[in-house]
């Protein structure tokens, strides 16, 4: 079974965008999540990311990340409530605990834990959208001229991870199918076997890379064309959205918008700037929206590029 976070090629703007454009867009939203502690801004960022993921067709990835993030957030809330006793609104006095000492559960500690959890969940959703919508091959291709060896390592790892996952699933099945008279398989032998199998697989994948000519330097006289590698007509949209989000967030931060203090009592600033920024963050989730095609316009398009160019050059 495929991981919900695995990249799935779809004909959407986010999938068509160059890795740099997609990273700019999603990275700006992640930066906002770290820049602000206001639950309003964080919730708006999360909503924008969920909207972006759904519009990009990564519904399963978003759902999985959302539930994982929610679980993590609850865990953080509980731990923070037990570990931090700051805050004036004491909800419960739980007495002396081993290691923790006097445990007082305060509303402020719970609120701070919730903000931390919300931030973690937001970042997880952002990475889920990235993982499901940005083609790792294009990312590696973009990195290759910058760091060839690292790109090779990343290529091997990115291929071996799903192969190792499939191997692990098969080994688990085989362990279940052993008769009751066979020696049971513990986790250590299973892990050893998986490691040994992964090394064999790595050798095979490395051999394939050799056969594809990975070890060769590109010829110096390789033809240059007017096409720039991996660009798409949606790039500007994502660059613009990312830049707008980032500039607006920094500007709003400078005006002290989105203030949040948990201690000693909860203070939440919800001014017009905060609300405007939040609205912008939610709307930024519309960037991957794909406009419906007008069939008549397509039919009459005089200079529509042939299929081969559309697929090979821009994938837009």
């Amino acid at each position, binding site marked *: 079974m495929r991981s919900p976070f695995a990249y799935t090629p779809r004909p959407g703007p986010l999938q068509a965008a160059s890795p740099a454009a997609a990273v700019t867009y999603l990275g700006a939203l992640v930066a906002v999540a770290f820049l602000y502690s206001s639950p309003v801004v964080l919730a708006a960022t999360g909503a924008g990311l969920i909207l972006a993921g759904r519009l990009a067709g990564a519904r399963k990835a978003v759902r999985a990340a959302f539930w994982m993030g929610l679980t993590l957030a609850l865990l953080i809330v509980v731990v923070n409530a037990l570990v931090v006793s700051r805050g004036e609104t004491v909800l419960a006095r739980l007495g002396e605990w081993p290691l923790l000492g006097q445990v007082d559960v305060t509303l402020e500690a719970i609120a701070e834990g919730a903000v931390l959890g919300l931030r973690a969940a937001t970042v997880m959703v952002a990475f889920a959208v990235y993982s499901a919508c940005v083609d790792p091959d294009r990312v590696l291709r973009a990195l290759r001229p910058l760091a060839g060896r690292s790109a090779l390592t990343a290529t091997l790892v990115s291929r071996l991870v799903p192969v190792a996952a499939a191997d692990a699933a098969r080994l688990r099945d085989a362990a279940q199918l052993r*008769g009751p008279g066979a*020696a049971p398989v513990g986790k250590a032998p299973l892990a050893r076997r998986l490691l040994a199998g992964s090394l064999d697989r790595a050798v*095979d994948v490395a051999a394939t890379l050799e056969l594809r000519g990975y070890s060769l330097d590109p010829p110096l006289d390789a*033809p240059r064309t007017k096409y720039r590698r991996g660009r798409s007509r949606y790039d500007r949209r994502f660059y613009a959205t990312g830049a707008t989000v980032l500039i607006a967030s920094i500007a709003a931060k400078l005006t002290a918008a989105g203030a949040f203090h948990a201690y000693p009592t909860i203070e939440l600033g919800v001014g017009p700037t905060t609300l405007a920024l939040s609205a912008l963050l939610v709307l930024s989730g519309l960037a991957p929206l794909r406009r419906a095609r007008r069939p008549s316009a397509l039919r009459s398009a005089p200079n529509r590029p042939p299929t081969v160019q559309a697929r090979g050059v821009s994938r837009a």
Partner: protein
Amino acid sequence: MEALTYSYPHAPEPALREISLRLAPGEFALLAGRSACGKSTLLRAACGLIPHFHGGEIGGQVEVAGMDAVASGPGELAAAVGYVAQDPETQVVSTTVAAEIELPLELRGDSPTSRARAVEEVALALAIPHLLDRAVDTLSGGELQRVALAAALVTRPKLVLLDEPTSQLDPVAGDELIWLLRRLNEEWGVSILLAEHRLERCLAAADRVIAMATGSIAFDGPPRDFLAWAQGADQALETPAARLFSLCDIEPLPVGVRDARKILNSTKRGREGRRTPSSLNFSGESESSSPRPADEKVQAVRRGSASPPTAVVGVRDLWVELDNGDAMHDVLRGVDLRVERGERVALMGRNGAGKSTLLRTVAGLIEPVRGRAVAAGGIALLTQNPGDYLVRERVGDELPGDMGLAALRVVGMEHAVDADPRDLSGGERQRLALAIALAGQMEGDELPGLVALDEPTRGMDRARKGDLVDLIGDLSGRGAGLLVATHDVEFAAGFAERVVLLGDGVVIADGPAAEVLSGGWYFATEVARVLDLPGAITPERGAKALLKPGEFALTRPMGEKRRSQRGEGG
């Protein structure tokens, strides 16, 4: 290749010995031979992986398209040589199909426009343009194999090397791949060197056969001469149609189904103008009239039970849904199946038809969404990779105690208690894995109700398949029901008394093997396709049909005449 000798690192014996071989441009050569005879090593030497990737000691010369393969690396040879290995899973390194096919061109420095055109053309040639935007981990084995072939062909190499590319393909996809290679060979002038065990599938497409034995070339010549050589030198390399002809003493031996029909028809026309095979009303005498030893054991088991036949597997209205990455879809749709004690059933169908899913559901690894699958008396399932069962370094540690020893005895491996599983041959490892699945499920010598095997013949030569047929007969004789998922029709004809054919999650045929394996084109044995007679699915049954007195055109005197001409008949 000139006097090529090669030894793997730390190997006591050379894997290749004094190989001298010349492949002309545009030639289609088939590399035949038993398992571990050196076929894969020879292919790896031709693409530069040996010695550059594997190391070892090499002597002699290898020259490919004017390049010295020993001096050049596989990367440099990649411009002239494409290589497709047996396991397609480890041959893809990208996430999407288009990126995978495009990668060699990109690494070569081709422009985006020429890359796009080359990708489109190779995709069209291999009929995979619809796959270009798919993620590679959502493809079936057959689709993945085509993608690997496309990545090997996209640079327009002069030579393509293929190492058992059809071993994981169903008969339909396997036949399509071979004829695709022939078409590429004819239209693009690509030289092909194809290593394959199922010779009946590709002999007709080849111009030449190179047979290897223990690292040396034992035969090199045209396909028809190869069949004549194999008849005397190694019958495990004979095709079923050739075996049929040799049993009937018909000459020349046929290279493929079409050739066999032509020879048979001309033979008949030359002999009293009797009827052709396809016009005969042959009753299809089944093998049950002369049962094999295993059949006799099964009949004894069944006779021993006074009660009506006991079902060891009962599957009723079984629906299974699996996630294919995008959405849940039905893999099994209302399957009904019943396997009796001692019955040997082959489960066949295209890749993705639901064979493995059915076996896994019966074994309890998958929960059905509707219906039920009950294996009364237990099940021992051996999955496609026997190596997955072997996690320790001593056979005795895998199977400790009396129960372990009893299981080893059942598969004839009790002598290997102290062996390291990694030192065992492929067939022995498979038997050991089966023993692990059986261990503790036996009461005395009595086996669990069902023994299920999933694609057990991958990469096996015919001799090893014969051993497996014997093991299946033995297990069946001990009373276990056998349910074997396989793509190999010849193997199925060898062991099965009944064949269940799955198509897109539905049972589309269920009947005696002699009937199901002779009633179609793809899921039919070579002999069945040659004779087109109900029941004639193996060379032995076919020969019986051909030599049936009074019914058929061919009679023994012709053979006697031939023997006397060769001086064998006294």
